[in-house]
């Protein structure tokens, strides 16, 4: 991956086959990474499968899937229209999932219950990944994609966020997580709605440039300092490859209350160097 430019990201992707990706992840895990976060892009289920089959994963590690794979659904909606998208989602559900939906929502598609549908859909989306989970991995959290989290923040509406959190707690017995580019707004909305952040994972950008930190770096830092509960994972610490790792770490070390950092790597050597350095510096 590279966020510095799409061209570079494409070039790197073209050079990486499944085996190379597995090697990058194994290299990261043997060099100090403790978990793996991924979107529910179809390739990631193959990666998890290959990771388990490789036998090279060193020890226990944690998984942090991010749902849904938003870009994929946008593409599908563009291709098939909204009705076509709904049909495509329904066609992916297993017979038992469909039966569950019909029981919850009635026999008419027009009477489908969006809440029941969302729960069933989340389970169906995750099933393909969790069934591929390597034996020595632990599901630590399921995170909601930033587009949905931030959309709810835009509307100042917690119903979907609360539903997601409850569903993850009840069905997977793990911490619900949210990716957001609007950290202060997220904390404020949860607190005002009286929703607990105690077991919540929040993955959000923190870097010395203030890149993707809305509304400002100062405001994000202030929200982090005053945070009473919750588990914050800093992402984009190198501002998409714009800041050097040692500079990024220097900044991250000044931040209180971080539970972890999420960092990308694009080759075995890169993963080894990055995570070894992070282990030493953090």
């Amino acid at each position, binding site marked *: 991956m590279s966020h*510095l*430019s*799409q*061209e570079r*990201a*494409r070039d790197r*992707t*073209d050079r990486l086959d499944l085996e190379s990706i597995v090697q990058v992840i194994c290299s990261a895990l043997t060099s100090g990474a403790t978990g793996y976060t991924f979107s529910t892009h179809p390739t990631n289920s193959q990666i998890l499968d290959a990771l388990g089959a490789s036998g090279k994963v060193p020890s226990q590690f944690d998984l942090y899937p991010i749902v849904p794979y938003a*870009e994929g659904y946008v*593409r599908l*909606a*563009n*291709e*098939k*229209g*909204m*009705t*076509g998208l*709904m049909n495509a989602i329904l066609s992916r559900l297993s017979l038992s999932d469909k039966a569950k939906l019909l029981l919850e929502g009635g026999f008419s*598609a*027009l009477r*489908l219950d*969006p*809440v029941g549908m969302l729960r069933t859909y989340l389970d169906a989306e995750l099933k393909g990944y969790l069934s591929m989970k390597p034996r020595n991995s632990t599901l630590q959290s399921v995170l909601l994609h930033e*587009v949905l989290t*931030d*959309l*709810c*923040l*835009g*509307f*100042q*509406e917690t*119903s*979907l966020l609360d539903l997601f959190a409850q569903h993850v707690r009840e069905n997977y017995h793990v911490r619900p997580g949210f990716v957001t*580019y*609007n950290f202060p*707004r997220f904390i404020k909305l949860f607190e005002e709605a009286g929703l607990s952040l105690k077991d919540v994972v929040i993955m959000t950008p923190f870097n010395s*440039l*203030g*890149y*993707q*930190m*809305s*509304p*400002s*770096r100062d405001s994000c830092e202030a929200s982090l300092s005053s945070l009473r509960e919750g588990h914050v994972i800093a992402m984009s610490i190198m*501002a*998409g490859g*714009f800041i050097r790792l040692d500079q990024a770490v220097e900044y991250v070390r000044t931040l209180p209350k971080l539970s972890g950092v999420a960092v990308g790597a694009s080759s075995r050597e890169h993963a080894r160097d990055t995570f070894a350095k992070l282990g030493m510096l953090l």
Partner: protein
Amino acid sequence: MGILHAGITNSISGANVTAICEKESFLTMAAKAFLPKRIAVYKDYQKMMTEEQLDAVFITTPIGTHASIVNDLLKSNTALSIFVEKPLASSYEEAKVACEAATRSRGVHMVGFQKRFSPVFQKAKQLIEQGIMGDPMFFRGYCYSSDVLREGSAWRFRKNTGGVLLDSAPHLLDLLIWFFGEPTRTMAIKKQVYSSEVEDYVHAVISYDSGLQGHVDACWSVSNFRLPEFLVEIYGRDGIITVTDDYMKFAPGRGSAKMGGAQTYHRQSFETSPPFLLADIDYTMEDVAFLNAVRTRTAPEPSFLQGAKVNALIDKILDSTEKG
């Protein structure tokens, strides 16, 4: 796109989304379930106009419906401000209908070419205007994506309302018009790869009266482009400017007075934090600009007239491909 603009707009201080209009039953149910209860949900925009007191509307419907909806909305409320997602219409004739309706209105009217709000493209525009690369001689540009790798069934694949020229190419063509003004001549070819009614690929040579020439490629069926990519490269007498969504590079020419090594400005180097970030900073800045124009009653850019120029160029390119 509608829900994206609604989320951003609602987050901006002083703006409130009070109603949405959506025809798909499941989406209206989802909106009622997950959006704030104060937001009214309609299936018919005429009914919405009758029952709501609106200052502004965002139109994010299929392209072929834009002009008639603009016309209907402005008949209902002549003071209404309207934002139309790009392109303004599916043809220049339809764009003119929207422009004429807008001239009879007291509101402000804008087209959603959000690349103009990207700090990287803004930097390129600034350097072109400063003449940093000397007289521009020629350019090349592309917009590529992997959006269409099989025949689709949505309106984007229907003749007169779809095709890559109406889908992603308008951004590229608007950037050229923004940088250099309206071209006078085009020669183009098109190709259908997966779609049976519309073009999946277009190559166009574009010429200006000034002597500036260049070519653009638009294709939504290139494999390996997980996200759409845009590039414009301008070759001047004193150097080359390359601009994408991610960076802007200026490479001074050999022997040029501006020599001193290439300068690259990455997005990160001058991006400031937006008040709210949903998907991409460009969308927020675009919506902020529109809402400021609504508040101050000043003409926003890109206006409907500017949007119509893009439609005119699209028509010219299509016409050229049909003439061979």
